């Protein structure tokens, strides 16, 4: 056992952790904390907000590049480049660019050893941000599989857990509304 102490995490250290620059010893100290710092989430939000150029308030981070933010009366998914994906209750993948790999040649570009899937039963879908073209998600599923709605955060419960419920709290926020968009599309196509 080394001679060290646990001092929790400062905002600056958290920033380094987010950037992947916190030294391993510090991370070990965090992992060894018997009781975690209670205000971590708020510090995290501050760090994240300072990293983006836009002003909308981040409610929760849902991926490396994506955030649910408060925009007026809405809660929308926003990429750190500024691109907006719309209502977070609708799978953001429906507002992205999609590229599906369906052949061995296309698989070879990303699976570089022989243990790759069989294109007859799997397609690999990549979802990109229409603005910055960052790869935001990857699915490997059989053809015809609906887009996986990977995360629908229960934001109001989160803020309640943190002891600071949102003013806009409403049961309706924790609903999957993806079908409203596909229904709209179907209707448009039907016309």
């Amino acid at each position, binding site marked *: *056992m*080394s*001679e*060290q*102490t646990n001092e929790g995490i400062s905002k600056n250290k958290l920033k380094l952790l987010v950037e992947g620059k916190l030294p391993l010893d510090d991370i*070990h100290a965090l992992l*060894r904390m*018997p*009781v975690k710092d209670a205000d971590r989430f708020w510090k995290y939000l501050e760090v994240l907000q300072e990293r983006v150029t836009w002003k909308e308030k981040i409610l929760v981070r849902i991926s490396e590049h994506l955030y649910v933010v408060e925009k007026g009366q809405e809660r929308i998914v926003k990429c750190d480049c500024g691109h907006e994906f719309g209502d977070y209750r609708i799978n953001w993948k429906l507002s992205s660019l999609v590229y599906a790999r369906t052949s061995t040649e296309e698989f070879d570009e990303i699976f570089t050893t022989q243990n790759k899937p069989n294109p007859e039963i799997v397609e690999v879908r990549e979802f990109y941000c229409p603005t910055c073209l960052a790869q935001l998600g990857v699915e490997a599923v059989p053809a015809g599989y609906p887009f996986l709605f990977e995360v629908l955060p229960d934001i109001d419960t989160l803020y309640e857990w943190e002891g600071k419920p949102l003013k806009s709290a409403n049961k309706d926020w924790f609903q999957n509304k993806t079908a409203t968009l596909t229904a709209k599309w179907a209707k448009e196509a039907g016309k």
Partner: protein
Amino acid sequence: MTTKDNKKYLVALDAGGTMTDTFLVDEEGNFSLGKYLTNYGNEAISYMGSVGDAAHQLGLTSGDIHSNADTSIYTGTIMLNILITGDGKKAGLLVTRGQADTPFLERALTWLGRPPAEKWKLQLHEHTRPMIDRLNIVEVTERISGGNYFPRGSHYDAGHVIIPMHEEDVRKGVERLIDNGVEVIGICFLCSYANPAHEKRAAEIAREVIKKRGKNINLILSSDICPMIKESARMKTVLVECFACEGARSRLKTVEDSAKADGYKFDLQTLLAFGGVANIRYPRLYESIVSGPTGGMLGGKVMADLKGIKNLLCADLGGTSFEAGVIVGGQQSLNREPNFAGHRLNMTMLATDSIGNGTGTAIHVDPEAKRVILGPECAGSRVGICFDYPEITLSDINVALGYLSPDNFLGGKVKLNREKAIHELTERLAKPLGMDVFEACAGVFELMHSGLQDHVNDTLLSRGMDPGEFTMVCYGGSGPLHMWGIEKGLKLGGMFTVPWAAAFSAFGIAAAEYYHRYEKSLTCSILPSLSNEEKLDICKPMAAAWRVLEEQAYKELEQEGFSRDKVTFRYGIAARYVGQLFSSWEAPVEFGKVDTIDDVQMICDSFEKTYTRIYPTASRFPEAGYLITSVYLEAVVPKIQPKLIAHPLKGLAPVKEAKKGEREAYWDGRWHKCDVWNMELMQPGNRIDGPALIEHPMTTLPVPPGRYVEMDEHMAIWFKRENEE
């Protein structure tokens, strides 16, 4: 005190993480202790400083000692430091093709040496810093069979060549290693323990190439230094030898040079992990990786022999860790696959278990779960919040409850702040638990001591022993300090400490035997279905292996200056039931021969004896037959031993000057007024009744009410209950 010229001295040093301790003893058994801050950069300095300190106690200089010393044994943390800092030799390694990642995969043992709570925290598992660069590993096509556990004739015999060696791989590979500038080359092929032919041939080729290139590069063969099954551990062992040993040897050499410049006339010796000592020129210096408690275990052995104690439990309690090992029936138990600095090795080491947190361990409370969490951090030399550490520690409790005087830490060199300790213990421990501060403190000790008791019990029970048959010796800086707590819940046969508890390891090193140990893997399946002739035939390789090991021992000891007639041998085997896997048990046998069926029976019996000492009879399975997996040999030569003299017993009462004053200490829910005594002025025959506190510059021995201590003629301080004799 002592005149200059007419005494022979034995000097033994134990360099620890912080201090280098010296135990200096003359031929009459008079001893003195020396201490000096360990100097990692140049251990010759701390060596000389520590010997000088011990000499000073006798009114002499280090030169006086050195010019009259027969033996100086130095052991320490050189190897450990090389491994931890990564400051070793640039090694090359020849391995069987397909095995180059073995040192990095490490058998997935990424949790070695971590406390249980951290083993469960997988994010904290990490691979150990490798001892070699992946670019310097050369793969050689070859394969040899290691044999199998089925009856003979089922498959290849052990040693059968499945794939002949491709010599060109060796030639090209060694060329590449030389281009890369390696300083030493190891060779470790699969199953080479069963047949070293490929390793030996590869070494020949390597030597030719090295010679042709005009280089001087040492070769280390796994079949030479460690012909034992388990390639990953064997490869690590070869790497330790390559990476750390030559560096360690040259650093030991500087220590030797400084001793010689000071008048010492002989070769410096060092401690080996299984408890022997050897010259620092010893070819398998990897065996000198010694974990902290080894010296103490040897000290325990001396005390056990001296006092006629058959079963002894040795507990080394310090600031950072508590460790324990056992001596059973006069035999120290050995670990055949020890872990060292995050590496699992293939060698034999005196077995010790980590039994708990050291006294510097930080204390946390999870207020919601009302849970006390000890560690994992440790204050080390910063003691606790009473000195220089931001967290409350077990040491703070020792101060708060009055066991440790704030004015006597390190002989008073460090002042501790008791008020601060109590204040912070109140805020951080007692209040979150909703308890009185002293009760909470006593509770934490309860918790810690019961953990120690359980560990002690398990250490014994897992060897099939009843604690009542054991005596316990406590040493290390915190050994005396926690004796009372450990004793409370254990039913031991006896318990003692010594005034030199804080330098007990150095004392043990002084007493080590001069011996080498050799072991060789083999496979002899003694199945019940076999005829006597067949059994005998199957066991013949054991005798042959012993002869080979004997020759090796004679040769090596000759190089260290011992003629054949000085050497005596001890023999033994490692075995299991046929069908058991991966574990073997070591059993000494009376002689190293297999001439008759009775000899075979004797060998099987010795295994049964060992096995049933550990496991209930229900787990015996002789119907399956016996599998002998290795033979070993211990080659012993005489060495002078420190004498512990029996002093005449003085009266029960200590001399008046021994009493230092009074202080209150907390036991059983209330404060007790205690006499404070000076341990250094205690004399054989003295008895001190609890409640009392007996202080030594390096430690304190609290004696609670209902207990007393008594010093015997060898200065062992026995800890006893009032109604006991």
